[in-house]
């Protein structure tokens, strides 16, 4: 029972394959971080040898470690066995003494770090997918002191890794921030490039203790593959627990 429910998100997202871009969007009322945790756990399943490169702007390692441990996934062990690379960007400050140059340098250095890690892991034998996760994009913008063009450049650089090494991307962003026209590209461009868009929203009727919000999943990839565009936008409710998230269609929760 639980198993089939947990699959509602996976069903909507589709079968995992390399080189896919997933964009998760949330808002102040409903955090979408649990979707990120879900993808993190799924990429680190013991029966695969996939690698995750996690770029954390929002929380320190201990936060993710404790959450994933409850979900049955030990990040410390994965870190030791080189399946999980954690880049702590919590205090990344692109220094602003020398103007714009240095800010881009900070992001460039970060990109260099990512590229190096991707190169190392893709050169190892065995077929493995490398997933790059970013939590979250709006904080990169803060670190870059509002130069959203640099953030976009950074993202596009990262996307080139998709073509070169077949990396997958999972990024988190906050939808409600981008309301004015000059900030829109930072949400629209990743959305355009994404294969799967997952939006976490609160219920229109407010918060409830047994329904924590709703997810809208738009799967663009499968539309092209199969030729039918029907029922590829899914909408369902969720309830977040410590070790699992329940997904269910409205009104079907027992």
């Amino acid at each position: 029972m639980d198993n089939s429910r947990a699959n509602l998100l996976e069903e909507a997202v589709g079968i995992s394959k390399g080189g896919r871009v997933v964009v998760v969007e949330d808002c102040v009322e409903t955090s979408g971080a649990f979707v990120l945790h879900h993808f993190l756990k799924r990429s680190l399943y013991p029966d695969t040898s996939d690698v995750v490169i996690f770029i954390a702007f929002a929380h320190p390692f201990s936060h993710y470690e404790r959450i994933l441990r409850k979900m049955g996934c030990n990040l410390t062990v994965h870190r030791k066995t080189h399946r999980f690379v954690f880049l702590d960007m919590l205090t990344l400050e692109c220094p602003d003494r020398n103007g714009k140059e240095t800010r881009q340098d900070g992001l460039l250095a970060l990109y260099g770090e990512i590229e190096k890690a991707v190169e190392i892991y893709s050169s190892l034998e065995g077929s493995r997918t490398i997933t790059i996760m970013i939590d979250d994009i709006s904080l990169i913008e803060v670190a870059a002191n509002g130069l959203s063009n640099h953030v976009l450049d950074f993202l596009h650089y990262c996307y080139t890794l998709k073509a070169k090494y077949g990396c997958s991307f999972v990024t988190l962003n906050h939808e409600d921030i981008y309301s004015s026209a000059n900030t829109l590209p930072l949400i629209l461009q990743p959305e355009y490039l994404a294969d799967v868009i997952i939006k976490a929203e609160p219920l229109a009727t407010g918060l409830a203790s047994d329904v924590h919000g709703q997810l809208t999943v738009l799967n663009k990839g499968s539309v092209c593959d199969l030729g039918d565009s029907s029922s590829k936008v899914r909408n369902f409710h969720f309830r977040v627990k410590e070790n699992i998230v329940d997904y269910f269609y409205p009104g079907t929760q027992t």
Partner: protein
Amino acid sequence: MASSRPRGGSFSRNISSAATTQIPGVKLGPNGTSFLSSGIPDLDQILGGGFTLGSLVMVMEDPEAPHHMLLLRNFMSQGLIHKQTLLYASPERDPRGFLGTLPSPMASKEEKSHERPAEQDANLRIAWQYKKYFGEQNSEGQRGGKAEYCNDFDLRKPLERHFYSGQRVDCISLRDSPNLAPLLERCSTFSAQIAKSDDNITCASRIAIQSLCSPQCDFSDKDWEMLSFIRSLKGMVRSSGAVAVISFPPSLVSPAFLKRWQHLADTLISVKAIPDEDKELAKLLTGYQDMLGLLSVHKVARINTQVPAILEATTFSMKLRKRRALVLECLNQAPVDGSSGSSYGTSGSCSGSSKTGNLDF
């Protein structure tokens, strides 16, 4: 809903009765977190134990009334009583003057512990079978750690001078500096002093910043600078044993940036004054005359967990008990007469429940 309530109640109670640590004023919470008291017992209870250590609390001010100062004062006063190190920044010319306005803890704790069980009795008339459990744990908590963890403050009595005459309080004026770099430096040296080694917090500390983006500060038009300051502060606080409370007037932040500020906050609270003579509201809410204002909790810190905190109510009324102590209460809707059609549901359920209550007993 009705069935889940006792469960929720007992769950939170277990947390609050968890063993207190050696560090004064710090209480262990779930998921390896610790709590600091906010200085308002009711707010601690609403937030599930207090402000999480290492979290950033943002208070959205009311543009017309200084209710946020009540929160900041209680928060800092509680820190002084626990002998924690404090940092206070404000746009005032003389930020040290703030210390003179801090409230003093209520002298007689006996009064408080007598009063509480009586309240419990009144609330638990229906769920009588739970009463004995609640009563027991409550009184135990009152006498044990909890009374020390969080004091009731007498807002009319200033804190005695010896509490803050020591070296533990840093005060900074935001007005002198053209940018936020000096403040950030002070914060980082401050949090470096108390940086915890591994998981051992030796001493908790509190940072309070009042009216961060007020127009008196020269940097109030530099949106990105303030944002990156908040982010740096959040990173600092997270890696040290501190809680930072920032209050800001939301109307002075542009809407797009307001959302960013809210996303950066771990715990988000807003306070609102209520107009003196609002007849509509007075009719709707009981005890309207005693209310100081409304306090809403928009977000509760979720550190080390992905489960969102769903509160039973998000808006509470701020009242003064005996004109001294700040208390928060759930809003009670007054029974409405049948003339207004929209409130049929509430009035119906109200009378219905009270009727069945009468019949049962």
